[in-house]
C-alpha cells in the first residue's frame, strides 16, 4: 500500500468513525462501505484483520454489521479480490450491499479464530447499540460487559445519552465506566470507579484491584472510592457464588429424588428390594428416545415438543414393564428379601441385554429441546442452566403427583392398608394381590418419569441404570424406609452436601466422603432420618 493510499484510508476511517456515528440515527438508508476498509478482512495477518474489524465496528453503519455478522457465521467469501457474503443461496457484495447475480462459485471462505471472533463480537455489539429493538440493544449491552476498550468511550457515551430503558442504561453505565477508567481527568476516573461499584462482573474486580494501589492511581479519593467499590463487588460475587452452589446442590438433589422416588414406593413402601430399579429408569429414558425419533420422523416441525409427549409414554411403558416383572417374578417372592434381591438383579441383567439387542450397545443421542437450552443469567458470570431449572420443576411435579396418589386416592389408601396389615386389609375386602401389582406398576412408572429427566442431562445407554441404583438406595435408606418425606429430605441433603464437598475437595473424594457418611449414619441410626411410629413396625 502506498503512503498516500494509506493516508487516504486513514482519513477515511477517521471520517467514518468521527462523523458517521453522529448521524447514525439518520442512517436508515444504506451507505456503501469503502472496499479498502474491507480488504484487510481477508488478510492472513490477524493484527491487520483485527484493526479492520475495530474500524468497521466504529462506523455504526448497518452494512458493516451485516459484513461482521457474515464473518462471524463463516458466510463471508472472497473471490478474485472482491468480498461478498452469502445469505442462503444468494450472494451480496460486501461493500455496496448489492446482490451479485449469478452467485460466484469460486469463492474462498474467510475463516476466523477465537481471537478474531472475540473482536467481531465486540464490534457487532457496539454496532447494535443503536438498534431500534430494545431486546437487541440489551443483548449487545450484555455482550459489551467484557472487552471494552478506551476507544469505545465516546460511542458508549452517545448510546447512553439516547438510551431510555433502565436496564440497558445500567449496563451501559458500567461499560462506559470501564472504558473511562484510564481517563486523564481525575473527576472522570472517580465517577467511573464509583459507577463500577454496582457491577457483579468478576472482571471488574481485576480492573479495580490495581487502582487501590498508589503506584497505579495518584489521586487518593479515587483510591478510596476504588476500595469501596471493590468490596461491594466482592461481596456481591461471594453471594452469587453461594447462590450458585446451593442451586447446583438442589439440582443434584432433584435428580437424586427423581431417581429414587420410584424406589421409595417399591422398596420403601412395599419392601421389595428391587435391584432392577435402575433399569426401569433406563426404560423411561429409552421411551423418551423413541418419542424423539418418532417426532423427528413424523412431526419435524414440532420436534421441540417431544418431551411433554414423552412423559406419559415413559410412565406407561415403565409401568408396563413393572407389571410384567411383578406378575411373573416378584409376586412369588414377597417376604423373601434375599431371593427377591437375587431375582431382581437377574432381571436387571436381562433388561440391560435386551436394551443392547434392541438399541445397540452405544449411547443414543437425545437433544435438549431449544426451550431447554441455554440459561438464565442471574448475575454476570452466574448462569442457571434452563434444563436444570426444568428438572427441579419436574421433580416437584412428580413429587406432588405421588403425594396425591398415595394420600388422596382410593388406590393410595389401599396400598397403605395392604403394606401396614395385609391380612386385615384382605379381610375388609381389599384385593391385596391386585393392589400389589398396581403399587409396583406405580413405582415403576415413577422410575420411568425419572428416566425422562435423566435423559436430558446424562447419557442414555443400556447400562445407565447401574450408575443410579446405588444413589437411589442411598436416598431411600437415608430418608427412612417407608417415608416419602424422608426421601425428599435425604435427596436434597445429599445433593447439597455432595456439591459443597465437590467444590472443596473434588468430585472423586466427594463421592467417597458421602458414602462413608452414609455408612456411619446408618450404623448410628438404622431407621433413617424419619421412622414410622406404631405397632406395625414390629412385624
Amino acid at each position: 500500500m502506498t503512503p498516500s493510499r494509506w493516508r487516504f484510508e486513514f482519513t477515511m476511517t477517521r471520517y467514518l468513525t468521527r462523523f458517521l456515528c453522529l448521524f447514525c440515527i439518520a442512517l436508515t438508508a444504506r451507505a456503501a462501505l469503502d472496499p479498502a476498509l474491507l480488504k484487510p478482512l481477508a488478510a492472513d495477518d490477524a493484527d491487520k484483520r483485527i484493526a479492520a474489524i475495530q474500524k468497521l465496528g466504529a462506523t455504526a453503519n448497518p452494512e458493516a454489521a451485516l459484513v461482521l455478522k457474515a464473518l462471524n457465521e463463516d458466510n463471508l467469501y472472497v473471490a478474485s479480490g472482491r468480498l461478498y457474503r452469502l445469505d442462503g443461496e444468494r450472494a451480496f457484495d460486501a461493500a455496496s450491499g448489492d446482490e451479485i447475480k449469478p452467485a460466484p462459485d469460486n469463492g474462498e471462505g474467510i475463516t476466523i479464530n477465537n481471537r478474531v471472533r472475540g473482536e467481531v463480537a465486540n464490534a457487532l455489539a457496539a454496532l447494535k447499540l443503536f438498534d431500534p429493538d430494545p431486546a437487541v440493544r440489551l443483548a449487545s449491552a450484555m455482550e459489551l460487559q467484557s472487552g471494552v476498550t478506551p476507544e469505545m468511550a465516546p460511542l458508549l457515551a452517545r448510546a447512553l445519552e439516547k438510551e431510555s430503558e433502565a436496564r440497558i442504561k445500567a449496563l451501559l453505565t458500567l461499560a462506559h465506566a470501564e472504558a473511562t477508567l484510564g481517563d486523564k481527568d481525575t473527576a472522570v476516573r472517580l465517577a467511573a470507579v464509583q459507577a463500577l461499584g454496582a457491577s457483579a462482573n468478576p472482571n471488574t474486580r481485576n480492573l479495580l484491584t490495581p487502582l487501590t494501589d498508589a503506584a497505579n492511581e495518584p489521586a487518593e479519593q479515587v483510591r478510596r472510592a476504588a476500595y469501596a467499590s471493590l468490596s461491594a463487588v466482592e461481596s456481591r460475587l461471594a453471594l452469587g457464588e453461594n447462590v450458585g452452589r446451593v442451586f447446583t446442590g438442589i439440582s443434584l438433589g432433584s435428580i437424586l429424588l427423581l431417581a429414587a422416588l420410584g424406589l421409595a414406593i417399591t422398596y420403601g413402601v412395599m419392601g421389595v428390594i428391587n435391584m432392577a430399579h435402575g433399569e426401569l429408569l433406563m426404560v423411561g429414558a429409552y421411551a423418551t428416545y423413541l418419542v424423539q425419533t418418532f417426532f423427528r420422523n413424523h412431526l419435524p416441525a414440532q420436534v421441540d415438543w417431544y418431551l411433554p409427549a414423552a412423559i406419559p409414554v415413559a410412565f406407561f411403558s415403565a409401568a408396563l414393564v413393572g407389571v410384567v416383572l411383578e406378575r411373573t417374578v416378584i409376586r412369588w417372592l414377597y417376604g423373601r428379601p434375599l431371593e427377591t434381591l437375587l431375582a431382581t438383579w437377574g432381571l436387571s441383567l436381562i433388561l440391560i441385554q435386551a436394551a443392547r439387542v434392541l438399541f445397540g450397545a452405544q449411547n443414543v443421542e437425545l437433544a435438549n429441546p431449544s426451550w431447554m437450552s441455554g440459561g438464565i443469567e442471574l448475575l454476570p458470570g452466574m448462569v442457571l442452566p434452563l434444563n436444570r431449572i426444568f428438572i427441579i420443576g419436574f421433580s416437584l411435579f412428580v413429587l406432588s403427583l405421588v403425594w396425591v396418589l398415595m394420600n388422596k386416592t382410593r388406590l393410595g389408601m389401599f396400598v397403605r392398608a395392604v403394606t401396614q396389615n395385609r391380612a386385615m386389609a384382605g379381610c375388609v375386602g381389599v384385593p391385596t394381590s391386585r393392589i400389589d401389582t398396581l403399587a409396583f406398576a406405580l413405582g415403576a412408572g415413577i422410575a420411568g418419569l425419572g428416566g425422562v429427566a435423566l435423559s436430558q442431562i446424562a447419557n442414555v445407554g443400556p447400562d445407565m441404570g447401574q450408575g443410579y441404583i446405588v444413589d437411589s438406595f442411598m436416598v431411600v435408606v437415608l430418608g427412612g424406609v417407608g417415608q416419602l418425606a424422608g426421601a425428599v429430605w435425604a435427596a436434597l441433603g445429599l445433593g447439597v452436601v455432595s456439591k459443597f464437598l465437590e467444590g472443596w475437595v473434588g468430585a472423586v473424594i466427594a463421592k467417597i466422603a458421602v458414602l462413608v457418611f452414609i455408612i456411619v449414619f446408618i450404623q448410628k441410626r438404622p431407621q433413617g432420618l424419619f421412622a414410622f411410629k406404631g405397632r406395625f413396625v414390629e412385624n
Partner: protein
Amino acid sequence: MQSRRLFIKTSVVAVALAAAGITALPAFAADTIKVGILHSLSGTMAISETALKETALMTIAEINAKGGVLGKKLEPVVVDPASNWPLFAEKARQLLTQDKVAVTFGCWTSVSRKSVNPVFKELNGLLFYPVQYEGEELEKNVFYTGAAPNQQAIPAVEYLMSKDGGSAKRFVLLGTDYVYPRTTNKILRAFLHSKGVKDEDIMEEYTPFGHSDYQTIIAKIKKFAGEGKKTAVVSTINGDSNVPFYKELGNAGLKATDVPVVAFSVGEEELRGVDTKPLLGHLAAWNYFESLKNPQNTAFIKMYKDWAKKNNLPKADTVVTNDPMEATYIGIHMWAQAVEKAKSTDVDKVIAAMAGQKFKAPSGFEVSMDEKNHHLHKPVFIGEVKGDGQFNVVWKTPGPVKAQPWSPFIPGNDKKKDEPEGK
C-alpha cells in the same frame, strides 16, 4: 513351542504333497491371515471405539479387495472387551492363543493398553495402538500410531499461550481420573513451569469415568477464570462424559472467546451427539481432521461413508472420520506393507520390517514409522469447533514431527533410550 508345532504340521502336509521342498512354508500354513480387533463395543468407551472397529474392518476389506497380503486374505476376528480393563487382557490372550492372530489392532484408553501390554510381551504378539497417549512407555511388541505428548499436548498449549491462541496465562487441567490424564497433566505442568507459569495459576481437576454432573466444575472454572489473567482449559476427559461436559459448558454460557477449552480426546465422532453451536471456537488438537482438503482425505472419507451405508451402521448418513480412525487406517496399511517386505507374518520379522515404513496418509502428509522408536512422524493440527460439528484448522506444523515418547519435561527421561528394550 507353538510355531514348532505349526511347523511340524505343515511339514507333514508338505511332505505328503511331495512338494518341491521347504520353500513355500507360509503358503501352507493357512488360507487366511487372522487379524485381531480389540475395541470396546459397549460401556463408557463405546462412543469412541466402535468407529475404530468399523475403520479396521473397512481397511481390511480394502486390502482384501486388492488381493490381500502375501496373496492371502485377511480374516478379522472381532472381540468386545466392554470398557472393562481386565477384560482387555483376557480378550487379548484369547486372540493370541485361541485365534492365533498375526497382529491385533486395538485399545483406546491407556489403562486398557497397560492391561494388555504384559500379554503381548509374554506371548510375543503384535499390537497397533491408534490413539494419542501420554508417552512414558516403549514396548517392543507395540506400535504407536497415535500422537505422543510432543505431537499433540505440548503444541496445543504452546498455541494457547501464543497471541493468536489468546495469550493464555492461567490453565485449568481437567481430566478423567486415570493414567493418561494424570501423566499428561504432569508433563504439561512441568512444561508450563518451564514457561514461567506458577503453580497458583494452574488448577488440576479430575472426575471419575462416566461422570455426568459438571455443574460444580464449570462453576469452579468460571471462578478461576474470573480472578484475572486470560484462562484456558486443557481437557483430557475421555469417553461419554464429554457429552454432559460440553452440554453444561454451552448451557453455562462459557464462550470460547472468554475461556477456550482445548480437548485431546474429543473429535468429530464424540461431537456427533452434541449441539455444537454454543461450542463455537473451542479447540481440539489432533494429527488429522475430517475437514482437511486433499485427495487422500477425500478418498478416505468417501470410503468410510460408503462403508457405513453398505453395512447399515446406525445413522449412516451422518458418519464422520476422525484422528484415531486415520491412525487405525495408517497402522493396518503399514503393517500390510511390512508383512509384504518381510515376506512373513512372523512377529519379529514384521517388527524389523516396520522401521522406516512410509504411507501417504489422509492428513495429506507422507507419514513414516521411526527407524527406532515405534512411533510415527506425524503433522500436528489445531482446529476450532464449527457449528456443524467439524473443525476449522487454525494452526498446523509445516511437516511431520518426530515423536518423543519419553517427554523431556519429566526428570530422568533424558537418560532413557529412544528404542524399546530387548529389541
